[in-house]
């Protein structure tokens, strides 16, 4: 019978199962707490509400100016939609049965402007208070164009022929750095990516440190380590807490993207999804790096109130990353951004920004990922050793110097 049981033990206590058990406990005890569920529900509602509010504020929803044409002004319809369309500001054009109807609609806000023909190329624009200058210039130029065409026809010139022969003349603008039509959205996406990254890494990194100290201060760590290896406990904890962070990040991202696309605030769908995916991916790398460091920091102390001071050196590194991210955000293609985004762990924070701003190449992404992975694995080994040596030490705080010395 004893052999039978030992046979069973092999699989029942494999490292993968132990790590999974530890991770599952971390995930369920954290994700099932009322405070966690409530705070996340509130944040998701805020994201949703914020995006809807932003889309209304920036006028992304139903933003086409409504133009009503009365009587013979209806002949402007084709020319108006053509010229407004050519500059990317489409109009919502309708024909109105009478001037009175048009006036009441303008007064009610159903129309932004009503155009009434006064004969021989003259029009009156009826507006509530004033006309937006952009809309005015569209209407002005269309009306003038119509008058010019009419005059040309009267002189026997075919406006179409004229337009064709004039088309080849003109100035072609050749920018050295062509402006990106989506740069506003790119910057916004990059900014959001940066904020999410920092919050998640700082918050969940501290959760790891606090989780380690919780086990030390409650002394349960001695029961655990009489049964499982310190490394398995460490990785289970990092994975479990990291999974919570990743799920939370994914939930924020999915809700944010869906709301952004639904309201028309985000039009660069492919880019947005790409940035979102890169944030998730780099979060995994960045979190792994900082989480093992935070675990080592947590193992140095025995009381929750000492966690922050032990974690200060790591938090400082995160803050340096934050400053670098601000620099990158201001100038994604600049020297600081392009140099620092190669260097772990800053690459985890800077690369999503540069991906969002479109200033990086697939080659750099691959190489910086590999570098980050290598450094994380090396750091995990050192951190795990510090953790192993310090986690059963109770009482006075172990200094970083001692921890690194015994770890060497």
């Amino acid at each position, binding site marked *: 019978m004893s052999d039978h049981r030992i046979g*069973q033990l092999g699989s*029942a206590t494999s490292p993968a199962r132990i790590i999974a058990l530890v991770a599952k406990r971390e995930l369920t*005890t954290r994700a099932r707490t009322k405070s966690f569920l409530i705070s996340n529900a509130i944040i998701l509602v805020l994201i949703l509400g914020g995006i809807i509010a932003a889309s209304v504020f920036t006028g992304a929803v139903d933003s086409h100016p409504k133009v009503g044409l009365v009587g013979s002004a209806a002949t402007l319809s084709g020319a108006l939609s053509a010229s407004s369309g050519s500059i990317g500001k489409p109009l919502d054009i309708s024909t109105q049965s009478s001037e009175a109807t048009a006036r009441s609609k303008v007064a009610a806000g159903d129309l932004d402007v009503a155009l009434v023909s006064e004969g021989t190329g003259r029009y009156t624009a009826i507006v509530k208070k004033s006309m937006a200058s952009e809309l005015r210039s569209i209407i002005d130029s269309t009306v003038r164009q119509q008058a010019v065409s009419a005059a040309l026809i009267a002189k026997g010139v075919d406006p179409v022929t004229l337009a064709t022969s004039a088309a080849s003349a003109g100035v072609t603008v050749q920018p050295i750095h062509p402006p990106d039509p989506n740069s506003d959205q790119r910057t916004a996406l990059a900014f959001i990516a940066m904020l999410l990254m920092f919050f998640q890494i700082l918050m969940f990194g501290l959760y790891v440190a606090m989780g380690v100290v919780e086990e030390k201060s*409650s002394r*349960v760590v001695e029961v*655990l*380590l*009489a*049964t499982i290896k310190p490394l398995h406990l460490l990785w289970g904890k990092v994975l479990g807490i990291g999974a919570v962070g990743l799920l939370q990040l994914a939930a924020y991202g999915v809700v944010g993207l869906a709301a952004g696309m639904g309201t028309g605030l985000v039009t660069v769908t492919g880019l947005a999804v790409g940035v979102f995916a890169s944030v998730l991916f780099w979060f995994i790398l960045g979190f792994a790096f900082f989480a093992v460091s935070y675990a080592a920091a947590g193992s140095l102390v025995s009381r929750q109130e000492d966690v922050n001071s032990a974690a200060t050196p790591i938090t400082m590194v995160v803050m340096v990353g934050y400053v670098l991210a601000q620099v990158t955000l201001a100038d994604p293609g600049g020297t600081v951004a392009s140099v620092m985004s190669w260097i772990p762990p800053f690459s985890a924070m800077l690369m999503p920004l540069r991906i969002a701003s479109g200033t990086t190449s697939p080659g750099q992404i691959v190489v910086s990922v590999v570098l980050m992975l290598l450094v994380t694995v090396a750091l995990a080994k050192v951190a795990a050793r510090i953790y192993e040596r310090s986690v*059963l030490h109770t009482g006075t705080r172990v200094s970083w110097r001692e921890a690194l010395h015994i770890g060497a």
Partner: protein
Amino acid sequence: MGTSGQQLQIEGLWKRYGDTVALQDMTFTVQPGELFGFVGSNGAGKTTTMRIALGVLSADSGHVHLGGRPIDLALRRRIGYMPEARGLYPKMKVGSQLSYLAQLHGLSAGEAADAVTSWTTRLGINNRVNDSVDALSLGNQQRVQLAAALVHDPDVLVLDEPFSGLDPVAVDVMSEVLAEKASHGVPVIFSSHQLDLVERLCHRVGIVVRGHMQECGTVGDLRAGGGTELVVQAPQASPGWADDVTGVVTASYGQGRTVLTVQPGSEDVVDQAVLAAALRTGPVHGFSRSQLSLSELFREVVAA
């Protein structure tokens, strides 16, 4: 019975903390089915020995064997351990906590659930499984801690001060459980300062002094080594009356009351000689022969 029925062997453990020697050549064996009491003053090295056996501390030298095999992680999983510093997740529910620990020891989720039900019932905390640990009284937390040591049906039990902080009812439950595990062939080692309890429960006792196993054996063996005590009440006897009786080792004279220890091995002859000598001094109101209690033995060993 699993891998129980195996001998736990502690062999030549040494441990230093800086200049302090915590263990010096700590050696003893706990037989299958044996209840072994581990006694010693605070700081004598009991906890250090147990922590080394469980692998949470490493020895400078020496070995721990179970069933003749050096103890490793797989064997360690078969030990039930109750550390001196009690440790449980304070905010975790009793039931899920015990189930988690059982699964870490290799039980499936189903087996763990059964084990949790049976042990919490046995220890009288089955109505608290859905409460978080920190909502329980200290005594009940202690029961949960014992359940945590037993929930995976261990082949060896190592318990550091399992009786401290227990009410008399809980002491009885704990004693019963330990005796039962031992009767199933499990070697059980526990440390305690409650020497009357150790004397009552244990098959063998080890007395640790300054990191070394000073005395080890059955309580009977230790007593035999400690000798027999005679108390004589003879009011007219003058001090020194028993000094010349052959076989008397020590004698202390009080107000008509004399306490003597006699040479081990010849108690039955010497005590009659003492009685005869006492009668020669005048009336004898009391004469008794007693064996040393474990507490007295302990004091003697520690003082030596």
